[in-house]
């Protein structure tokens, strides 16, 4: 699973993106491309020093400005399930192909893909904080950004602890 495929798998999941300049963006991944350009939704931007915050409904980040992305643990598990399902599929397909070969059939449309739908069961672990960022100040989100009220889904927890 290539890094960019993993990123694609992480669509709709919460993530933390740190830019080369130290700013961090917490939000849900909407889309990404092969240049690592990304769209985020429900974003909280944190300054490099970690004491200023901005909320925005969505944002676009150019891939070349990214330092790293942090994604939830379960996204990797989803990949493993997918891979298992695929290899199971492949062995079944091979079996079918062997059986059909005597019957003059081209096995193109063979069967659905059982087990392919695991993806949505993983859900978002809301307790996991993606608010750490470059500094240890994520705890201050609650206080410093009072006007943001309670709508801080995952950034307010300090994952330094």
């Amino acid at each position: 699973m290539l890094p960019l495929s993993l990123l694609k798998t992480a669509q709709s999941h919460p993530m933390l993106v740190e830019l080369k300049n130290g700013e961090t963006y917490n939000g849900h991944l909407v889309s990404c491309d092969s240049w690592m350009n990304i769209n985020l939704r429900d974003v909280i931007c944190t300054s490099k020093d970690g004491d200023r915050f901005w909320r925005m409904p969505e944002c676009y980040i150019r891939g070349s400005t990214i330092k790293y992305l942090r994604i939830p643990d379960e996204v990797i598990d989803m990949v493993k399930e997918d891979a298992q399902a695929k290899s199971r599929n492949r062995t079944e397909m091979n079996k079918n192909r062997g059986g059909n070969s005597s019957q003059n059939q081209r096995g193109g449309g063979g069967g659905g893909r059982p087990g392919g739908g695991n993806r949505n069961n993983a859900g978002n672990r809301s307790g996991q904080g993606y608010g750490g960022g470059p500094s240890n100040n994520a705890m201050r989100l609650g206080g410093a950004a009072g006007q943001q009220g309670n709508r801080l889904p995952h950034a307010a927890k300090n994952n330094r602890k």
Partner: protein
Amino acid sequence: MDDLNPLAGTAHLLEEVDKKLMVLLRDGRTLIGYLRSVDQFANLVLQRTIERIHVGNEYGDIPRGVFIIRGENVVLLGEIDREKEQKLPLKEISVDEILDAQRREQEQRQEKHRLVSKALKERGLAVDANIINEDFC
């Protein structure tokens, strides 16, 4: 190396997959985790990652989870020797303590830089603070 190989240059990184690696980023941070994937840009996927902060001969680990690191931000990486890891000549302290130590170290460094640039200024030299801050932006 075979020029037709699309992974030429990163091919030897493939041998590090699933090993426990230490990755040093350009901003000076140290990450330690299991390498799960690489691509032709040397983008990395690290799982069960910790960020390790060193101050003097003390260190602290902060659990961080899964990283997708853009390759161009990596300075170096290397496998962790599991045997040597057991007998580090360093002392592990709690996250709070290491963050505190890091903050003190940072303050000392800033104070030093302040004195240096003051001394230079008195001698008629102007120095860009960003350069001596070792800030990579």
